[in-house]
């Protein structure tokens, strides 16, 4: 079944005519994702990706006329919050926002609007979601995946690729890989994704990749201790050597007032029975030690 995206995904790409939008849409289609529409206000009626994808002026039209049920956003930071709200208004229930650099205060009313509409936002500032063998929404390279039963959730981009590659190399396939994004205000947290994995009959083990800043990893650990007993789980936390008070590339990756350190997160996860790796390449071995058999 996988979570968030899968065989039933009918994708609309918001910003399909942009450089990023076009490039990654091609990769998604090549992976087998059903891309049913793109949007570019003012170019409705035209087509994109060598005439294969119809362009609509609005997301509402893409939903109504092409049956889109999932959206991915490749629109610059100044327009991305509006793009999310447009997708919400069009009744899209799964919205993946790749855009980096959206001011945090812009996201506060947006995540609230998403919540009230009963929709789900992944990101922003995230690499997207892939359910290997079924659908790829976003920018995670197709080559690293192998279909399987391990759920992966991460705040990072390339670090996720590293971990997923290590798992694929070790023969451990993935059910769904979710990049939740590195910003302080994001639509979907570790906790949300853990709940989805728990309820997914096709996910048998979980890999979580966190980093310094905030307390989302601690909340995830508390959930795991209570509700994921018996589910093999391994984690990696980036930023053990990060100096306090400095923003480490991601807007949300900062140790402030002495909290949000890697040490706290690792301690919380270990206390919850989660195996924590010193290097992402150890994750497959730790999953096996936790009792997972592919």
């Amino acid at each position, binding site marked *: 079944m996988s979570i968030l995206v899968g065989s039933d995904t009918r994708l609309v790409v918001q910003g399909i005519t942009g450089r990023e939008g076009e490039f990654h849409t091609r990769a998604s289609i090549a992976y087998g994702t059903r891309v049913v529409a793109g949007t570019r206000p003012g170019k409705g009626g035209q087509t994109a990706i060598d005439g294969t994808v119809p362009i609509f002026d609005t997301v509402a039209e893409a939903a109504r006329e092409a049956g889109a049920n999932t959206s991915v956003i490749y629109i610059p930071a100044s327009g991305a919050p509006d793009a999310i709200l447009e997708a919400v208004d069009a009744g899209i229930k799964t919205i993946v926002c790749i855009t980096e650099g959206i001011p945090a205060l812009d996201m506060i009313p947006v995540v609230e609007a998403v919540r009230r509409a009963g929709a789900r936002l992944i990101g922003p500032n995230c*690499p997207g979601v892939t359910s290997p063998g079924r659908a790829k929404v976003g920018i*995670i390279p197709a080559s690293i995946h192998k279909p399987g039963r391990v759920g992966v959730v991460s705040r990072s981009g*390339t670090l996720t*690729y590293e971990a997923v590659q290590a798992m694929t190399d070790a023969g451990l396939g993935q059910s769904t890989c979710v990049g939740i994004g590195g910003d*302080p205000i994001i639509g979907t947290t570790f906790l949300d994704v853990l709940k989805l994995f728990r309820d997914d009959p096709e996910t048998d083990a979980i890999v979580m990749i966190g980093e310094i800043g905030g307390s*989302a990893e601690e909340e995830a650990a508390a959930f795991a201790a209570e509700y994921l007993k018996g589910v093999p789980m391994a984690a990696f936390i980036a930023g053990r050597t*990060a100096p306090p008070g400095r923003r480490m590339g991601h807007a949300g990756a900062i140790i402030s*007032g002495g909290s949000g350190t*890697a040490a706290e997160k690792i301690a919380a996860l270990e206390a919850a029975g989660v195996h924590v790796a010193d290097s*992402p390449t150890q994750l497959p071995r730790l999953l096996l030690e936790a009792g997972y058999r592919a």
Partner: protein
Amino acid sequence: MKIQEADAKSLLLAQGLPVPPWKVARTPAEVEAAARTFLDAGAGRVVIKAQVLVGGRGKAGGVKLAGSAVEAAEVGAQILGMDIKGITVRKVLVGAAAEIVKEYYLGAIIDRGSRRITLMASAEGGVEIEEVARQDPAAIHRVSADPLLGLLGFQARTLGLAIGLRDPLLNPFVAIALGLYATMKANDADLVEVNPLAIVAERALDGTATQSLVCLDAKITLDDSGLARHKGLEALRDLDEEDPTDAEARKLGINFIHLDGTIGCMVNGAGLAMTTMDLVKHYGGEPANFLDIGGGARHETVAGSMKLILEDPKVQAILVNIFGGITRGDEVAAGLIEARGQQTREVPMVVRIVGTNAAEAARLLAAAKFETATSLDEAAEKAVALSKGAAR
């Protein structure tokens, strides 16, 4: 981006908050002149505060009182040039010393858990709020602004009542709390802190005292993602306190943070860049920097980044770790080759490039005789060994 107290106070004033007047001085003579202005206007004493972007300046001796203009000049001479946590004090804020009756804490933050702006207040003002949070968490009161409607009057009132404020200071507190929220919104700040927010006594000529609430200190950090849409905020960046590499990194569009170690790191992606540093440490080395070249970096960005790494004389070895997604491995390899042509000193380097166009990258690197590695752990181990070899 952190900004100085004086600039933070200007942003608060712009939203109508009560901030006592101040002047910024860069020399003892300027301190003396500023002090004279306040003393002539009736101040009993003046306060001189170091303007630095690090906390703990009070403990470090960077905040002092003076009773005369001459004394102010002496104090100014002590504080200017002082080293506070590695930062040289280049300017001070001068103002009339307030007669403080009671100190409070008031701050607005972006609360990641509730995904709202949260205001925090405490009757334990004047000390670090993290300290209060550790010692007596119940002493900190919070309200979260409505995500669509903003901070509401009754919420601000509830907060004021919780820290013990009553008529006639309750309404002024509500105005200040709403003003903090407005300051945050108006500037895309991610933190606005007034500590202390103080009840001060002001004496009229006949000796009668009136009390009022004023913002005696101000700390604001701005969301880097919001800077571009606010004219004038970029000018508040304090270039004096920046690492000289920061401006260069901004120009290149990369994230670079200077650290104390000997192994220069060049990585694509923030999480992987932190991980690379962590692995360097894990294998017994010390990272010299955090460097994320971003997604889709071109060869000139790679070459510029390499130059920045090599400018640090402590760097004894370099570790390049690229997992190509949007970033093309061959583009990075070309940049590394270009950088080596321009390089002024020989530093051993290990390069690991996997993902998009890794095969092309491998060919380029082999032809140019670069030392390479295939796994992340191998790359880190090799870099550590190279750094130690170079030190001998």
